[in-house]
């Protein structure tokens, strides 16, 4: 059984005097023990909202959450706030995008690490400080005892993200959610941080839900990939399968829009036209249709179903998937 099983998760923001806006519209995916699962999509596709909904960190007012999210057999979405609070930080942990703004500027790093040890592991005083230093050391922060006394603004960007990771793994959580953990960092630091995450996951057997728009991160880290578009999963497959055979026109377009060094000189990039704001409601048809080169009248009548047009376990939500041309098969 999957460690985390999300079924038809939906999140709708309701504000007085405004139209309801649905950020997540029926997302389903599984994360197995020790697996690294990617949620990929452009900004605004609902991937961050999904992670916040799982952690129970969405604001209480003005948000409707639907569907189920079973973690270890218990539904996170209907759990009492107190129970969820006990789970957060110990069973489930999260790493955020911007390490500077995610750290409290007026509290020393040490306190921000020890407070989670005090809360979930009952460590106090010297024991907590020692363990905090251990943790910082483990995530590759040199001179940890000195760093414990420092404030976030005294650390470099990479250090800050390492400190946040130390807090997230402090109680050996079973599931780690990382929301664009490398976006705010320099490229060289990005690689280091990904390496660190990979190491921690391998050592501890922690499952990792990686939320990113960076296909490079996906290629380097994820076992299973879910591509999100306008609040719904449009394609889901193993990493190799997805990169080899992107089948939904959106995933196909995403991979086609990456510059490649091995491409012949002068070959134009093929960007996806328009933006995520050019869309139609999923209830009316495929939200991607306005930007799609392959759309037909069938795309505009109701939500497309998930099918497996190419291989078992490779799910695609599309009426006109990008499949290898029959001609090519003949000649092969």
């Amino acid at each position, binding site marked *: 059984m999957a460690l985390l099983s999300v079924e038809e998760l939906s999140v709708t923001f309701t504000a007085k*005097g405004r*139209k309801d806006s649905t950020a997540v519209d029926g997302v389903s995916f599984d994360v197995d023990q020790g697996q690294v699962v990617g949620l990929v999509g452009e900004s605004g596709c609902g991937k961050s909202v999904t992670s916040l909904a799982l952690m129970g960190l969405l604001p209480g007012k003005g948000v409707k959450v639907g569907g189920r999210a079973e973690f270890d057999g218990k539904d996170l979405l209907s759990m009492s706030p107190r129970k969820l609070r006990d789970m957060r930080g110990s069973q489930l942990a999260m790493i955020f995008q911007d390490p500077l703004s995610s750290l409290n500027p007026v509290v020393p790093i040490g306190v921000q690490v020890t407070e989670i040890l005090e809360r979930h592991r009952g460590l106090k005083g010297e024991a907590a400080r020692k363990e905090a230093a251990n943790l910082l050391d483990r995530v590759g922060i040199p001179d940890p005892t000195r760093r414990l006394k420092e404030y976030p603004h005294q650390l470099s960007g990479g250090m800050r993200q390492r400190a946040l990771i130390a807090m997230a793994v402090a109680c050996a959580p079973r599931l780690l959610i990382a929301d664009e953990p490398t976006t705010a960092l320099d490229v060289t630091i990005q690689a280091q941080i990904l390496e660190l995450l990979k190491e921690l996951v391998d050592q501890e057997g922690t499952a990792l839900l990686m939320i990113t728009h960076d296909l490079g991160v996906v290629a380097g880290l994820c076992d299973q990939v879910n591509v999100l578009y306008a609040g719904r999963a449009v394609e889901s497959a193993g990493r190799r399968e997805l990169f080899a055979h992107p089948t939904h026109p959106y995933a196909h377009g995403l991979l086609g829009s990456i510059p490649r060094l091995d491409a012949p000189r002068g070959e134009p990039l093929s960007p996806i036209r328009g933006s995520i*704001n*050019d*869309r*139609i*409601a999923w209830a*009316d*048809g495929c939200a991607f*249709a*306005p930007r799609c080169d392959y*759309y*037909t*009248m069938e795309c*505009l009548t109701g939500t497309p179903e998930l099918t497996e047009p190419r291989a078992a376990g490779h799910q695609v939500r599309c009426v006109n998937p990008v499949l290898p041309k029959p001609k090519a098969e003949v000649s092969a």
Partner: protein
Amino acid sequence: MTKKADKIDRLAELMQTSEVTSGASLWREAMRRLKASKMAIIGAVIIALFVLLAIIGPWLAPHSPSAQTWRGEVFANKGQFVGARGENWFGLDHLGRDMFSRILVGARQTLMVGVVSMLIGLIVGALVGVLSGAAATLGGRTGERVDTVIMRFTDIMLSLPSLLLAVSIAAVMGQSLTTVMIAVGVVQIPIFARLLRGSMLVQGSSDYVLAAKALGIRKKRIVLTQILPNSLSPVIVQATLSLATAIIEAAALSYLGLGNPDPAIPEWGVMLAQAERFFDNEPMMAAYPAIGIIITALGFTLLGEAMREALDPKLRG
């Protein structure tokens, strides 16, 4: 090809339902938000009523505000007052004058005190602020020096409790309503100056100014045509808010004995200050002008705060 046309039509139809975000200008956007704000509406209604009262009040007044018609019925020295009755809805003051008429007539003078004080502060303060802000933005050694000197000066003024600054100005000029207005207005000068300068500095370091510089537009021109107009919104907000403080501070100065003790034309602040002596015997004599002042000040404060919120880029959704 009809199939393709159908397809496009259908798509266009479905896309229409999605929200269209139009790039409304800052001011239009702010106006829209103001109209949606209850605070702004209540404030605007209060202000409108107050201004209307200030215009037509003297014609509505049933009695002369200065005639001591019922002097023989009031013995202020014995603490004997006449409360509300038939022809005197709000009762009589200590000199036997009709309080209701005085309140109606007094609105105009009160509005004048607020507006004149605010204008003194706004005009002088804005001039000082523009000078300082322009000097700082244009830079150079001279510019910096001018800015520093001006800002030191406003620091000095700000370091004094406003009421005491007003008191010292009033002490030089003697007792009169004009003194009170000047004193209250002068106190506002450093506030307006600081605000405009700060706002100009923020605008001056923004990207569009950099872009204008890169286009080779002369710096002075940028200051006048780009930076200044964009820096005015906090000043307008402050002007609205300071109408409220001016009316309250003017009342306080009158209470401290710096206003004209008994002008021919009534003014709420002066009326309130006079009523203090008789508060234990006739509290309503103080209450009427006080309520007038509080409601009016509230009107300006509500509108000012609502404007501040509407113009705050952080809150723009």
